[in-house]
């Protein structure tokens, strides 16, 4: 069981807030800390994993919940 450091709920947010909020939150986190993101915007579900790679954060898990809702677990790379 992964220990979740922080949870970010961006459900209902419009483009590109889900992505921006996720990225800026990860930027402030320490290496190895885990961010849980709850989102319901289809484009971001596909786009966030693409952009995580560039920032070297690690996508641990994407879980599809009911409807367009998704839960993502991301391990921060620790840029600070």
């Amino acid at each position, binding site marked *: 069981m992964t220990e979740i450091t922080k949870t970010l709920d961006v459900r209902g947010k*419009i*483009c590109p807030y889900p992505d921006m909020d996720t990225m*800026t939150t990860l930027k402030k986190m320490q290496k190895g800390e885990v961010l849980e993101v709850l989102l*319901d915007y289809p*484009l971001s579900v596909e*786009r966030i994993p693409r952009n995580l790679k560039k920032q070297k954060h690690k996508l641990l898990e994407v879980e599809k919940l009911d409807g*367009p809702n998704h839960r993502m677990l991301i391990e921060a790379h620790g840029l600070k």
Partner: protein
Amino acid sequence: MTIAVISGLFIGILFGFALQRGRFCMNSAIRDLALLQDNTLMKAVGIAVLVQMFGFPLLSWAGLITPSPKPLFWGANLVGGIVFGIGMVLAGGCASGVTYRVGEGVVAALSAVIGLAAAGTITAMGFLKPVMSYLQTNTKIMVGEASPTLANIFGLPYEITALVLSLVLGAIWLFVAMKNKEEVEASEGSLTQRIFVKGWTWLPTGIVIGIIGILAYWSSASAGRNYSLAITSGWITFVKKYIVGVPDTKIGWDAWLIVGIILGALVASLIAGEFKIRWPGWKTILQTLGGGLLMGFGAVTSAGCNVTHILSGLPLLSFGSLLGSISIALGAWLMAYLIFVRPNQA
């Protein structure tokens, strides 16, 4: 039932379906280039433009359409485009993006289209009309009797120029992609799953939207409206007919296209299980309404939104559309910098 009703609605349903499946939004495409260094959606836009640049000349040779590039009025293209670009970042979607998201259940997109339709109408026939007319009349540049295009400024015919250009650009793209060993991301699952459940990747999205654009031009021209896909004019028609009550306003091809887009996106999102009424809170509703208002003014002033200028206008080689497109991108980058980049630098 006229031909405009059936064909506009039909093309709209296809377009809405493809927009939803491909997550095809030009606001994201333009903004992500600068903001996330992500060019995936821009590649889909590029493919769609090239496919149409290849297809429109064939339609013209077959006598099915008459190429009708948008005029160049640099002041209007510049001001309208920049205002539109600023607006679409605030609205969280371009004209087609907010329209299809209404069908996905995004309430913030609904307030954006209300703004777009309202300001579009006010600029087309209300108190902002003098601003639009002033800019359009005083900065207009013509080549003889025609709107300037990349073809006619050199005295070349449109058809062969566009056809050759689409092939040359396509070849350059392929060459660069091969040189960079770029791989096309493969989608997994059965064909039905890939079409109806998973999001489409950029290459099929671009090709499908390009083909829809070609069919749209043909069907719209048969209905007596000689242009390809467009968004704002359809929305304005509804306001004119049902709110302002302008007599004899006809619900034409472009208005049926809008109805179709929303239906197509609704069906696509229901099948994929992505439909959900999303309430974002009043602050976001006001932001997207404001964004929509700017988009409406910008689109009518510049004689085109992102669809008219980028998707349909660039394949017609129109200089007005080229300037309109560049201005939209400039406005979008400026606004994205102000609300996303700068606050996070502190």
